[in-house]
């Protein structure tokens, strides 16, 4: 196995770069990172639309979320790969295609996490902000979202971990991310599949486990902050 690593580690890490396009683990990390960074704002926007008081906004987004959640990611990848160029007329490369598919797919899942987070903030917070004269948008931005996003952290991390693993589907459309590279290596040294894929599995594990641990650390730190402590529950009196 040592010999395997010694021979192929550069190929595994960066693909054919710098002689060819960037690939391997670097491409996987780049794809996952970009997908996270782009999917989060999309998820927040879609989540806000899901709780919008306006039906014109709420209904189409609700439909989109349910459609996307109702199909496998692989379908979304195929749509982005075959369908998107036929309507836009622009042929996107594999990286762009995969990024679009991931952002749309994760955006829809994040939207539901955001929606639940917003719904989890007590109604009194909304009422007191509106009573002060803050607009709906100001209330969301200054009062509701800051509380909702902090409570959503564990679910967000879950989704981010899933995103890292989902990048492996880029293999299907020939994106030279780390799984594709592993398959390439396997065909070159075709007797040692177990070792190649064990290393690949370990790589994903380190990435995901690292992110989980980081999130845990962040949670611990946030838990110590006094602005995030749950309020002492006032006595429940009948209205």
């Amino acid at each position: 196995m040592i010999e395997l690593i010694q021979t192929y580690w550069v190929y595994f890490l960066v693909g054919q770069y710098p002689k060819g396009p960037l690939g391997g683990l670097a491409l996987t990390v780049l794809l996952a990172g970009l997908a996270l960074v782009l999917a989060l704002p999309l998820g927040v926007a879609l989540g806000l639309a899901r709780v919008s008081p306006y039906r014109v906004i709420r209904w189409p987004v609700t439909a989109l979320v349910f459609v996307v959640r109702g199909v496998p990611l692989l379908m979304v990848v195929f749509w982005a790969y075959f369908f998107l160029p036929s309507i836009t007329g622009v042929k996107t490369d594999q990286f762009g295609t995969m990024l679009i598919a991931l952002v749309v797919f994760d955006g829809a899942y994040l939207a539901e996490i955001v929606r639940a987070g917003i719904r989890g903030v007590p109604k009194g917070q909304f009422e007191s902000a509106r009573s002060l004269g803050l607009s709906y948008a100001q209330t969301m931005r200054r009062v509701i979202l800051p509380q909702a996003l902090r409570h959503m952290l564990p679910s967000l991390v879950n989704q981010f971990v899933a995103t890292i693993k989902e990048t492996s589907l880029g293999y299907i459309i020939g994106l030279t991310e780390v799984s594709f590279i592993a398959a390439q290596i396997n065909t070159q040294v075709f007797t040692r599949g177990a070792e190649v894929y064990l290393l690949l599995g370990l790589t994903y594990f380190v990435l995901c486990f690292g992110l989980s641990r980081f999130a845990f650390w962040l949670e611990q730190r946030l838990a110590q902050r006094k602005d995030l402590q749950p309020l002492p529950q006032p006595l429940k009196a009948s209205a």
Partner: protein
Amino acid sequence: MIRFDQVNKWFGAYQALVDINETIAEGEVVVVCGPSGSGKSTLIRTINRLEAIQSGTISINGEDIHPKGLDVNAFRSHIGFVFQQFNLFPHLSAIDNCTLAPMALKRLSPAVAREQALALLDRVGLAHKANAYPSELSGGQQQRVAIARALAMQPPIMLFDEPTSALDPEMVGEVLLVIRDLVRDGMTLVVVTHEMGFAREVAHRVLFMDQGRVLERATPDDFFNRPQHPRAQQFLSDIRTPFATA
């Protein structure tokens, strides 16, 4: 100043307010009392449009509060509202709770907003807790910050929806003292409360509600000593002898 004209409100099939006709004068302190579910919270929540009404009109200073095109946010900023459950923003310190609305709506600079907020916190006796978060404050302290927050927009009217009902008994006094201080300043106050001693001392007028109707309106002296309506008599005897059954 605040005027209800034939106001009706339904929650589905349930009628929460029935033919409310009432006028509250500028500088008047009105205490609304009545049994649970009598509509008293609903009544004051209609004044700043937290609850919609289905018929009738409510006007403030002679102006209907439900015209088309009214800037609801500007309208609400002129009415302070204090909730039973305080509803402080837990992610903001006491002073940031008080500066949020003035900075966002009046475009006050942070320095000016902080200065004003500090004066208000001092007024409710909590200047020394300006940087504390709500989770570090007792219920009574939280409610006093909530009052300061509502005062920060300098509203001429303050509405209190059972401000002491969620408090431990030993903290009720400190909140009532702050409200009494506002009375002395001549603000227009509408207070839903079960604190009859407070009503007796500070109210100019008491409204008694039951089943969505205002059944009695009287001075505290008349209401507590010579209640007219049988339900009001029953209510007063119930709260005086809490252990009486039937």
